[in-house]
């Protein structure tokens, strides 16, 4: 899996399908957002879309 350098969303592609930014293989920390509306963690991170995210991308 690769992580988007901008939105941190995890994908298998070399460019992020959501924001078009390049992705990186070097990422750490794993976050799965299921319900972004009710999640305090998603709110804190500014995430509005459900999915899998990295916490840190290099």
């Amino acid at each position, binding site marked *: 899996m690769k992580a988007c350098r901008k939105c941190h969303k995890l994908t298998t592609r070399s460019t992020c399908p959501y924001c078009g930014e390049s992705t990186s293989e070097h990422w*750490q*920390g*794993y*976050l*799965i*957002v*299921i*319900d972004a509306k*009710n*999640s*305090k*963690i*998603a709110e*804190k*991170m500014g995430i509005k879309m459900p999915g899998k995210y990295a*916490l*840190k991308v*290099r």
Partner: protein
Amino acid sequence: MAKIFVVKTQVGQEENVANLFEKASKRTGKIYSILAPKELRGYIFVEGEDIDTIKRIVRHMRYAREVLDKDVKIEEIEHFLFPPSAVANIEEGMIVELISGPFKGEKAKVTRIDEAKEEITVELLDAMVPIPITVRGEQVRILKKEGE
């Protein structure tokens, strides 16, 4: 109202357990997010409506051990959400010790910092000819600041 609970897992299986929770949540609902920070081994955070749903999922889940009874506040786990950069405390001119890799134990001077890649370039102090070596920020320990 969402609450965040700590789930004990088998060490090394944190991401697996997070994925299994995601799968289980499709059946049970009431799970909002799952967090597996890199720094924390053997534990993950599960955000959900109530502890009973999480306990019920854990009972039938491989690699998950138990749910801690007390929930945690978002402020207590905030530092996991925004991990600091590995080069945050490193400055040019600092003397560092390499703590892993082929030059482990060697002392070196920092000559360049790449914030985006979280890498630093160093020159070994004991080398006859100064050869720049680029290493990751986590691979060094700060010994001295410039001028100390």
